[in-house]
C-alpha cells in the first residue's frame, strides 16, 4: 500500500461524471455498429433516450423529487443506450419504448430510484421484452444487409414490413441449431460460412464487440470500473468454452468466438460493473463476474434464448447482496476475518 501525505486533491467524481464517461465509452461501439451493421441504431438510441427521459421525468414528478438534478445525472441516458444497443436494431419503435419504460418505471423507480434498484434496468428491459415478444426480439438484421438508412427507419416506425430476407437469427443461434441437429454439420464447417461469420465471431458484430472492449479499457483507465468483474467474467466464460471446445471441437465453438459473440464484451465492461446492482467488494466482484460468465455460457449454448447475459446478470443481481455480506474485507488493523 502506498501512503501519500496531505494535501490531497479531491477527484471530481460525481454520478453525472461517471454516467457520462460510461456513455462516452460506448461511443466507439456505437460508431462501429452504425457503420458496419445498421445506421438505424442511431434512431433507436434517440427513441430509447427520449423514452427514458420522459419516464424518468414522470416518475420524479410523482415522487416529488427535483427534476433538474436527477434528469441531468445521465443515469437514465446510460440505461437507454444499453437498452438500444442490446435490442435488435430494426425492431419496431414501441418495442424499445416498452422496454425502456419498464426499465425506468418498474425496475428503477418502483424499487426506490437510482442507487436503490435491485436489478439492472437495461438487462431487465431485455429480459422482459424477450419473454413478452420472443419473435420480435430474435429478428436481427441479416449480415451484409443492403438497405438505405431511410428504409431502415421506415421499418422501425412500422411504415414497411420487416421481411424475412432482412431479418434472421444471430450467429449464436446458428451455432445452437447446429448443436441440436447433431452430426449433420460441424461447427468448424459452419464457421467457414463467410456470409455469417467473420474472423472472430459474427461478421461485423465481432468489431462492434471489439469496440466495446476498447471502451471498457478506457473505463478501466479512467478508474470508473475495476478489473475484477470483467476479468472474472472473461476468464470464466473462456475457461468453460475452452473446456467444451477441447472436449469436442466439432460441436462447440472456440473461446475466442464466445468472447466476441453476442453481448459478452458489453456485458463484461458495461453491465456487470454496475456499482448499484453488482457487488461492491473486490472478492465479491470476482465471484459475481465468474458466475455470470458461467451462466451466460450455459444459457447461450444449451438454453432456449439467443444470448444469456441478461438472464445471467439478473439472476446474479439477486445474489449480489449475499455475496457482498460473505466477502466483507477485514477491517484495517484487524487480523483474519472481519466480524
Amino acid at each position, binding site marked *: 500500500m502506498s501512503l501519500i501525505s496531505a494535501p490531497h486533491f479531491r477527484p471530481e467524481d460525481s454520478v453525472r461524471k461517471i454516467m457520462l464517461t460510461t456513455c462516452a465509452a460506448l461511443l466507439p461501439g456505437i460508431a462501429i455498429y452504425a457503420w458496419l451493421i445498421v445506421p438505424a441504431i442511431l434512431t433507436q438510441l434517440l427513441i430509447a433516450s427520449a423514452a427514458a427521459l420522459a419516464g424518468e421525468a414522470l416518475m420524479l414528478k410523482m415522487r416529488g423529487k427535483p427534476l433538474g438534478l436527477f434528469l441531468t445525472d445521465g443515469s437514465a441516458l446510460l440505461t437507454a443506450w444499453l437498452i438500444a444497443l442490446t435490442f435488435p436494431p430494426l425492431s419496431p419503435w414501441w418495442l424499445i419504448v416498452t422496454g425502456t419504460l419498464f426499465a425506468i418505471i418498474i425496475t428503477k423507480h418502483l424499487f426506490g430510484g437510482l442507487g436503490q434498484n435491485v436489478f439492472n434496468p437495461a438487462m431487465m428491459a431485455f429480459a422482459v421484452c424477450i*419473454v413478452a415478444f420472443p419473435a420480435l426480439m430474435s429478428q436481427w438484421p441479416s449480415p451484409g444487409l443492403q438497405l438505405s438508412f431511410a428504409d431502415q427507419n421506415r421499418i422501425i416506425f412500422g411504415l414497411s414490413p420487416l421481411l424475412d430476407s432482412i431479418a434472421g437469427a444471430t450467429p449464436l443461434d446458428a451455432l445452437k441449431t447446429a448443436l441440436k441437429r447433431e452430426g449433420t454439420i460441424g461447427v468448424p464447417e459452419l464457421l467457414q460460412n463467410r456470409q455469417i461469420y467473420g474472423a472472430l465471431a459474427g461478421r461485423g458484430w465481432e468489431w462492434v464487440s471489439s469496440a466495446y472492449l476498447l471502451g471498457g479499457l478506457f473505463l478501466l483507465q479512467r478508474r470508473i470500473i475495476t478489473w475484477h468483474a470483467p476479468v472474472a467474467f472473461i476468464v470464466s466464460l473462456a475457461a468453460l468454452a475452452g473446456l467444451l471446445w477441447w472436449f469436442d471441437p466439432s460441436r462447440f465453438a472456440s473461446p475466442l468466438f464466445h468472447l466476441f459473440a453476442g453481448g459478452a464484451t458489453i456485458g463484461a465492461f458495461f453491465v456487470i460493473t454496475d456499482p448499484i446492482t453488482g457487488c461492491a467488494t473486490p472478492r465479491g466482484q470476482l465471484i459475481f463476474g465468474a458466475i455470470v460468465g458461467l451462466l451466460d455460457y450455459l444459457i447461450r449454448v444449451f438454453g432456449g434464448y439467443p444470448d444469456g447475459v441478461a438472464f445471467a446478470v439478473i439472476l446474479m443481481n439477486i445474489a449480489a447482496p449475499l455475496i457482498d455480506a460473505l466477502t466483507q474485507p477485514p477491517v484495517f488493523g484487524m487480523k483474519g476475518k472481519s466480524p
Partner: protein
Amino acid sequence: MNAAEFKTLAHNGLWKQNPCLVQLLGLCPLLAVTTNAVNGFMLSLATILVMTVANVAVATLRNLIPHEIRIPVFILIVASLVTVVDLLFNAFLHELYLVLGIFIPLIVTNCIVLARVEAFAAKNPPLRSTFDGLFMGIGLLWTLVLLGALREIIGNGTLFSGIDLVIPGLSPLRLLPENYPGFLLALLPPGAFILLGCLIAGKNWLDARAPRKKTPKASNAEAQRTQNAAEETTAGHA
C-alpha cells in the same frame, strides 16, 4: 346478528381484510388461474361455495370437535366439499373443468379456506360464519376477476375470453385492435406478480387518501399530520 355486525363482516371481507390484497392468501391459484377474467370468476365461485359451506359446517360442529384434532377434521370437511364441487364442475362445465384442471382439487389446500375456518368459524356461531365465508369469497372474487381482466387485456387485448365454456354462444370482447402484438409477460406468472403488486399499491393508495376526507372533526394539527402521513405513503408507492 345485527346490521352493524353484518356491515363489519362485509367491509372486512370485501376490503379491509381482503384475502388477496391484504392477507395475501392462496397465491397459487391466484397466479396460475387468473389468465383471464372468466377463469378467475369460476374458480372464485367454486371457492366461495366451499368456504361458505365449510364455515357453516365447522361453526355448527365447533363445540363437538376436539380441540387437539381440529385441523384434520377441518381438512376432512373442506376436502369432502371440494370433492363435491370438483365433480359438479366435471359434470356440468366439463370444458372449463379441463382448463382449471388441478386448481379445483387444490382448493383443499387453499390457505384462505382453512384460515377462515380456523380463525373465524371455529369461534363464531353459524350465521355469522356463513356471512364471513361469503364475503371473504366475494372479496376473493372481485380481485381475481379484476386481475384476470387486467392480465388478458394487457396480454391479449381481449376480455372474457373463454366465456363460451361457461355460457355457450357468447364470444369474448376484443378491446384492443386486431394487430395488438400481445404482451405475453402479463399472461405468465411474473406478470401476475407485477400486476398484483400494482393492485396492492392501488388499494394502499386509496386507503391512505381516505382518512383525509373522513376526519373533519380532528384538530388542525392532527389533520395535518394525517395528511402528511398519507402523502408520504402515497409518495412511497408512486
